[in-house]
């Protein structure tokens, strides 16, 4: 009696832990089979890379300009105008765009656009028993399906970070122009405050976001079950878990970076 009640109470926690463990195992398997020859995943890798690039570029462009014009652009510009220091907006954009908004908007877009498409695709193959058929044919699904997606999403998210930074700064420029200020001081404070540490921190963070997205979305797609509703549910759970994982990782990473590199927080 006691044990059944305890089982029922802890069942969600237990299944969550089991899932996280399964995802860790999948990560390990993916890394091992990415490195161990043979390497049959070249063409699939290129295909997935182009697929993500094609789907994500426009949503990412719209989103980064919108977010950076609204959140750090307008609000910070309003605040700085009160002190007559609008030229400082460039320095603030190093913190706002390079360190925060570019990586996470990038992760949100890649997870929401490419990640959901991957889960839907793999889930459909699982439902139609294509994955089992592959295994019967002696083709390893991890090596041929998960590894190329994992590598492609890591690379594409990392590269999209640069794209997001460029368009994020465009948002800041629009905010400066809307307030009728010249762009020279913006660039001046931006480049004096920007540091290489910030940039590699941003790129590394973004690449890790891509890895989290790829693993969660592949795992959820490959374990989809239960017919038509199953694939939709898998996509639903995949984005929820990806978002939580990405933001939790963002917090830990940013805190570690800020604490271990105090020189990047100094205002110049």
């Amino acid at each position, binding site marked *: 009696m006691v044990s059944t009640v305890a089982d029922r109470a802890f069942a969600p926690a237990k299944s969550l832990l089991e899932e996280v463990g399964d995802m860790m195992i999948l990560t390990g398997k993916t890394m091992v089979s990415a490195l161990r020859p043979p390497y049959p995943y070249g063409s699939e890798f290129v295909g997935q890379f182009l697929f993500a690039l094609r789907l994500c570029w426009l949503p990412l462009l719209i989103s980064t300009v919108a977010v950076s014009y609204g959140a750090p652009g307008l609000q910070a510009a309003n605040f700085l105008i009160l002190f007559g220091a609008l030229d400082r907006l460039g320095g603030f954009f190093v913190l706002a765009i390079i360190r925060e908004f570019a990586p996470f908007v990038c992760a949100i877009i890649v997870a929401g*656009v490419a990640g959901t498409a991957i889960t839907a695709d793999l889930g459909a193959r699982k439902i139609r028993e294509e994955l089992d058929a592959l295994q019967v044919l002696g083709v390893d699904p991890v090596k041929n399906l998960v590894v190329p997606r994992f590598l492609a999403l890591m690379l594409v998210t990392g590269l999209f970070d640069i794209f997001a930074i460029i368009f994020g700064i465009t948002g800041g420029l629009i905010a400066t122009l809307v307030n009728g200020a010249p762009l020279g001081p913006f660039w001046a404070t931006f480049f004096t405050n920007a540091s290489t540490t910030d940039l590699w921190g941003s790129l590394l963070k973004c690449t890790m976001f891509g890895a989290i997205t790829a693993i969660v979305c592949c795992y959820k797609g490959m374990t989809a079950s239960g017919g038509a509703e199953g694939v*939709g549910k898998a996509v639903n759970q995949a984005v929820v878990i990806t978002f939580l994982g990405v933001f939790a990782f963002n917090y830990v990473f940013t805190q570690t970076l800020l604490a271990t590199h105090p020189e990047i927080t100094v205002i110049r």
Partner: protein
Amino acid sequence: MAGWFALPREWISSFGEIAKFSGKILGQVYSLRVLHFFGETLRQCGVLILGSTLVIWGLVFIVGLQCGIEGAYFTRAQGAPAYAGVFAAWCDLREIVPYGFGYMMSAKVGTGIVAELGSMRISDEIDALEVMGIDSVLFLCATRLLAAWLVLPFMYMAAVGAGFFASYLAVVQQIGEVSSGGFSLIFWMFQNPPDLLYSVIKGMVMATAIVLVGCYYGYHAGGGPVGVGTATAKSMVMNIVLVHLIGMLGTQVFWGANPRAPIGG
């Protein structure tokens, strides 16, 4: 070359249909015909509360922590760590809580609606409803929208609380360069009830758009189990772009011309 513009082309071609469908649902809610199915509305409220509340609060809590540490380090660099509350107040209430709420709404509720309605469409349950003489849009979509409007303002305000609590934890307990009282003084000085109202409006517009887009893609899903998955993925793309655009427009409309700060004359 065609693949590069597939997404904008699809948005343009489906925009009119989404607007028409949304207009139909909004009309059904405003003309109160949805009250024929008030029981179903209450059931949807229950599903929202039990299924989505904790996840949304959790995500907002995490982004609140993020605001806290960025604010603490930024104000420390300016030589004014006591003013971390300014950054936390503006970042939480005006920007990050609406965005976090919008992200989790589109991930959890939006795709959930598509998966549910899509599988009903695939298994011909929606056609069965029509055969029984029940208006399926009214029964499935309008009830969901009314349920969202009933539940989400309160859930949103509690989420704002979760974000504030997280920022407090990060600034005062974790970084620890400002006292609890000093933080609270500045934090509450830089916001007032109209700010909260604007923030709630921002969140509710996002939620409405997400539910409507979810209903459209779910109701019009087709093509077997694969179609449901694809529709879910497509709705997510549109929802995320809408969340960002609504966030920007909200900031421009509510705070664009007036910073609403207790500084200067």
